[in-house]
């Protein structure tokens, strides 16, 4: 009898693994998982604050994009061809790094944190 490999498992199986609590015979060996083991892990529910964009203060500097430790920011172009951040709240832990780094415009931040109730 051989152990299961993580490559034998697809994304759908992997979601079940998190939810179903598999036994050791079904579990891939050596604590291994398909690549991207955090893909289905909703770290967004750790957050007690979430970032929000004030688009008129955004200068498209990309600082938030590069600083985000969780790759939870995507830069999306608007009609004028300027890129602004979009936040993925499934993964965003509300760490506030983006808001802290945001230079804003004339002293007004483009990213502000709002408390989650």
């Amino acid at each position, binding site marked *: 009898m051989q*152990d299961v490999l993580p490559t034998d498992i697809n994304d759908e199986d992997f979601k079940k693994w998190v939810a179903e609590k598999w036994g050791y015979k079904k*579990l891939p*060996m050596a604590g291994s998982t398909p690549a991207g083991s955090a893909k289905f892990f909703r770290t967004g529910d750790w957050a007690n604050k979430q970032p929000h964009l004030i688009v008129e203060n955004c200068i498209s500097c990309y600082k938030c994009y590069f600083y985000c430790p969780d790759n939870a920011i995507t830069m999306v172009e608007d009609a004028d061809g300027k890129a602004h951040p979009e936040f993925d709240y499934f993964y965003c832990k509300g760490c506030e790094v983006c808001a802290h780094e945001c230079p804003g415009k004339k002293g007004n931040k483009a990213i502000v944190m709002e408390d989650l109730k």
Partner: protein
Amino acid sequence: MSRIAVTGDDAIAQAAKIVNPDVVAAYPITPQTIIVERFSDFVADGEVDTEFVCVESEHSAMSACIGASTAGGRVFTSSASAGIMLMFEILQIASSSRTPIVMAVANRAISGPINIHGEQTDQLLFRDSGWISIFAETNQEAYDSTIMAFKIGEHSDVLLPVAVGIDGFILSHAIEGIEPTDREFVFEFLGGERKAALRLDPDNPVSVGLLHLQDYYMEARAQVRDAQQRAKQVIIDTYKEWKELKGREYHPVEGYMIEDADYAFVTMGSGAGNARTAVDELRAKGEKVGLIKIRVYRPWFGKEFSQLTKNLKGVISVERAHSFGSPGGILGQDVKSTLFDSKQTPCIAEYCYGLGGRDCLVKEWSEMYDRSKKSFMEGKNLPYFWWGVRV
């Protein structure tokens, strides 16, 4: 092939040479022995294709081995004594990551006081780690066991690291004749290059060595538990194949003069040589005594062991290791629990001997036998006793 005279260290280095591993990572100074020093000669002389990684500590040595093995390589290393203590944390990860690393251990006493001579406590201390643990009695056995260790560890039913122990100085630095084999034979015996089912492959990405909390830790450990049990059949099959190909017969647990014996020594490693000679001498005097040699300590071959003990009136467990405050020796506890499990009730005597490399001569083994037998005749067990310690 003609025989060569080599030390135990050299025998293992020669075995590693013909295996031609992809990576050897080792820490090169004390308590390291000559094994990797010799091997580094082979690397420098271009006799192997191995990437030799000279790391900064034993902790890093085992870590580098795990990395190399996870990448799919065939990996060898060597350590001893305090070196094993420093890599202890990583030894557990080698087995849980299912990396079939082969490590030669020149069994040496652990500090303190500082001592570098023969004693098996270092290897016995990681008995619970998931490593397959083998002890050699002779240099030939060390040579053969090192080659077979790759085959056993890499088997897809097993995928566990393997430690091959040789008693420090008694084997590691003493010269014996061995019959070497050649690289073509070994390449074929091991089935060519290592084929790793689980490995880091950019075309087939996986994550390994992840966090397992209350929800999955027990299941991950249970896989190692099962792999240890499956290793038993693989070890038996590998020994059988070796006998067919090379003519030398090995068993995980071996009986000597055991069929009609009333009493028997149980021991591991080079001590079995002296025990065998003591058995021969005692037999010549009409004593019905035999020897059970444990070659493979983990996984523990309980069924095979109880087959050999079933007709015994007394068992004399003798080990070159110690455990403070315990209900007996380290090996002794395995012996006693196996007897209990098989509902066998011979008398038992337990000895710790030869710590820190202290000699134990053949006549002392005979004295151990006399002392034990006297007690057995009265139907009494003997408590765990340190042989040869001055009062």
